[in-house]
C-alpha cells in the first residue's frame, strides 16, 4: 500500500497541474444579495474569456470579509463596507469596488389594505422599537390620510441570520432615530427590541406573507419577485418615495459628489428630492497586491468589464447601475491593483 502512494500522488499532481494550465481559476465568496447579477457577470465574462473561470460562493457578507481577511479567496463581496477594525486585521490593503446598488424596503401584510402605505422615518423606527404597537396608531394614520388601518397589533418580522440587508436597515434607523442608535445600533445582526425572526430573505417574506398584520424588511428584488406590497418611505427632503431603480440611482448621485477615496460610504438617508432613503451599494473586496500576476491581470480585466459592459445587465435584474462619475473614479482604483 504505502509503496504505491507516491505514484498516486504524482498522478494527482499531473492531472491537477494540467488543469491549472488550461483554465485560470479565480475564487470569490460573500454577499448573497448581489449573487444573481454576479453569477450572470461571471458567466458572461467566462464566455468572453474562455481561459478564466470565476467561482463564487454566496456565504454572506461576513463570509466575504472573512475570506479576504484570511486570504482563502481571491476576492470577497459585501453589502457593508469593512470597518476600520476589520481593515486593520488584514495583512495587506483591501480595496472596495462598488458594483451595483440595491434598496431595502418595508414589506407588510395588513388584511383589507390595498393602497401603498407610507412610512415616515419616526414611525418606521417606532414600529421596530415597539413604540408604535398598533396599526391604527395616530402617527401612522397621519402619514396615511384616508386609509382605514385596523386596530390590530403590529407584528414585526426581522432577519435572524446576520446579513447585509439588516445592516442597511439598521444603519438607516440609526441615522434617523437617536433612540434606535443608542438602544440597538447598526450591525449585520442586532438585539431586536420586538418581533419574530425569519432566516434569510425568503424566511422574512414567508413569515410576512403568512401572518396577518405583520411588517418586515427585505431587499427590493425579493419583494418584487414575491409580488408583495411594499411601502413608500419619507426621505430627507420630506417626500414619500417608492424604491425603484430611478430613486435608488438618485440616492447614489447625491453620494457621488462627496465620495471618499476608498468608496467606503453609506448612502442611507441620502439627500436628493426623489432619493430613496434606504439604498445601498454592494462592494467587491479586492486585495491591492495580488501575488499571482496572471490572476491580477484577469481580476483587473473583470472589474473593468463589470463597470462597463456588466452595468448593462443591472436593470434587468432589478439592481440600479452605478452613476458614471463613480465608475470613472473606480477605474482609477483598478489601476492601483498590483
Amino acid at each position, binding site marked *: 500500500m504505502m509503496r504505491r502512494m507516491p505514484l498516486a500522488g504524482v498522478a494527482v499532481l499531473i492531472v491537477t497541474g494540467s488543469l491549472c494550465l488550461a483554465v485560470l481559476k479565480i475564487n470569490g465568496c460573500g454577499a448573497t444579495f448581489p449573487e444573481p447579477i454576479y453569477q450572470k457577470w461571471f458567466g458572461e465574462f467566462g464566455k468572453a474569456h474562455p481561459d478564466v473561470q470565476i467561482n463564487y460562493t454566496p456565504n454572506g457578507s461576513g463570509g466575504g470579509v472573512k475570506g479576504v481577511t484570511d486570504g482563502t479567496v481571491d476576492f470577497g463581496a459585501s453589502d457593508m463596507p469593512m470597518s476600520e477594525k476589520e481593515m486593520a486585521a488584514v495583512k495587506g490593503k483591501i480595496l472596495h469596488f462598488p458594483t451595483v446598488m440595491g434598496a431595502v424596503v418595508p414589506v407588510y401584510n395588513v388584511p383589507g389594505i390595498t393602497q401603498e402605505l407610507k412610512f415616515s422615518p419616526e414611525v418606521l423606527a417606532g414600529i421596530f422599537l415597539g413604540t408604535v404597537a398598533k396599526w391604527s396608531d395616530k402617527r401612522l394614520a397621519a402619514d396615511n390620510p384616508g386609509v382605514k388601518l385596523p386596530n390590530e397589533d403590529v407584528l414585526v418580522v426581522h432577519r435572524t441570520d446576520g446579513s447585509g440587508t439588516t445592516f442597511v436597515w439598521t444603519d438607516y434607523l440609526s441615522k434617523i432615530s437617536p433612540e434606535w442608535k443608542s438602544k440597538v445600533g447598526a450591525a449585520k445582526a442586532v438585539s431586536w427590541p420586538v418581533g419574530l425572526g425569519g*432566516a434569510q430573505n425568503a424566511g422574512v417574506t414567508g413569515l410576512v406573507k403568512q401572518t396577518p398584520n405583520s411588517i418586515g424588511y427585505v431587499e427590493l428584488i425579493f419583494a418584487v419577485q414575491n409580488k408583495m406590497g411594499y411601502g413608500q418611505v419619507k426621505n430627507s427632503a420630506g417626500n414619500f418615495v417608492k424604491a425603484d431603480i430611478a430613486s435608488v440611482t438618485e440616492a447614489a448621485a447625491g453620494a457621488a459628489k462627496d465620495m471618499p477615496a476608498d468608496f467606503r460610504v453609506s448612502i442611507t438617508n441620502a439627500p436628493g428630492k426623489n432619493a430613496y432613503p434606504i439604498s445601498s451599494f454592494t462592494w467587491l473586496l479586492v486585495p491591492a497586491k495580488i501575488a499571482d500576476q496572471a490572476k491580477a491581470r484577469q481580476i483587473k480585466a473583470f472589474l473593468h468589464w463589470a463597470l462597463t459592459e456588466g452595468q448593462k445587465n443591472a436593470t434587468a435584474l432589478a439592481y440600479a447601475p452605478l452613476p458614471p462619475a463613480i465608475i470613472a473614479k473606480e477605474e482609477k482604483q483598478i489601476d492601483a491593483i498590483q
Partner: protein
Amino acid sequence: MATTTTTAVRVSPKKEPTQTGDIVARWVTLLFAVGLLAVAVLLVYELFIGSAPAREKLGIGFLSSSKWNPVTEDFGALPFLYGTIVTSVLALLISAPMGLGAAIFLSELAPARVSNALTFVIELLAAIPSVIYGLLAIFTLVPLMRTVVEPFLKSTFGFLPLFQGPAYGVGYLTAGLVLAIMTIPFIISVSRESLLAVPREQREAALALGATRWESTWQVVVPYAKLGILGSIFLGLARALGETMAVTMVIGNDPRVHASLFSPGYTIAAVIANEFSEAGGKVHPAALIELGLVLFGLTIIINGFARLMILATTSRGSRRS
C-alpha cells in the same frame, strides 16, 4: 446512540487468535473503534479551543444570562438552552405515546401484510429531509395553529400561563409539534423491532394463563421490550435536540425566555445555523461555538440519564424474576 444496544452479546475470544485473518480483523475493527472515539474527543477539543474568547469574556455567567446582543458583544445561553429543552420535551410528550401505540398496533394487532406495508411508509417518513418538514409546517401547520389550535387552547386553558399571549402561529408549541412529527417514525420503527423480538413463548405463556390479548401485550410483551422502547424514545430525543432547519423555520427565532408556549423562541442548533456564517469579530463566533459545547454537554447529560434509567429499570426487573 448507546442507549439502543438492547442485546449486547459480547463474545470474548477464549484464546489468542492464531490466524492472520483474525489478527487483521481485530486491528482493523480496533482502529475503527478508536477512530470514532478520537472524533468525539477532537470535537470537544475543537469546541473548547474555539470558544476560548467567549469563555474568557463571559465566564460562567454565559449559562445563566439571557442577553444576546451582537452589537455590544454580550451573549448568554439561557434562552437557547430553554428553547431546546422545551421544544424537545414537548415533542416527546406527543411522540412517545403516539409512537408506542402505533408500534404496538403494528407488531401485535395488525395483520402481517398491513404491518409491513405501513412500516415501509413510516420508514420513508424518517428519510424525508428536515427542510421539507419545515416548509410543510410553514405552509400548513403554522396557519392552522394560528387560526384554530392556539385560539382553542387559549379559550379552554387560558388560565395557565403556558397558553397566554398572542397567537402568532410560530413558537415553541409549533416547533414541538413539528419535532414530534419528525421523531415519531424513529420511535415506531425501533419500538416495533423490539416488540417483534419478544419471544413467542412469552405471549403464549401469558395467554395460556388466561390473560386477554391486551393484557398479554401490555403486561408481558411491552415490559419485555422496555429497553428497546426506551432506546427508541431517547433516539427520538437526540434527533429533537439537534434538529435545526425544521425548527428554525417555525420557532420564530427570538432569543428571549418566554413562559407561554405560543411565544416565539430559539434553539441552540437554530441560532448556530442562522448566525455562524455572518458572525463578525472574535466573541460572537466564539459564543456560538460555546453554544455547541453547551449542546454537547446537554446530550451527554441526557444520555447519561438514559443510561441510569435503563440500569435502574433492568435491575429491578431481574430482581423480580
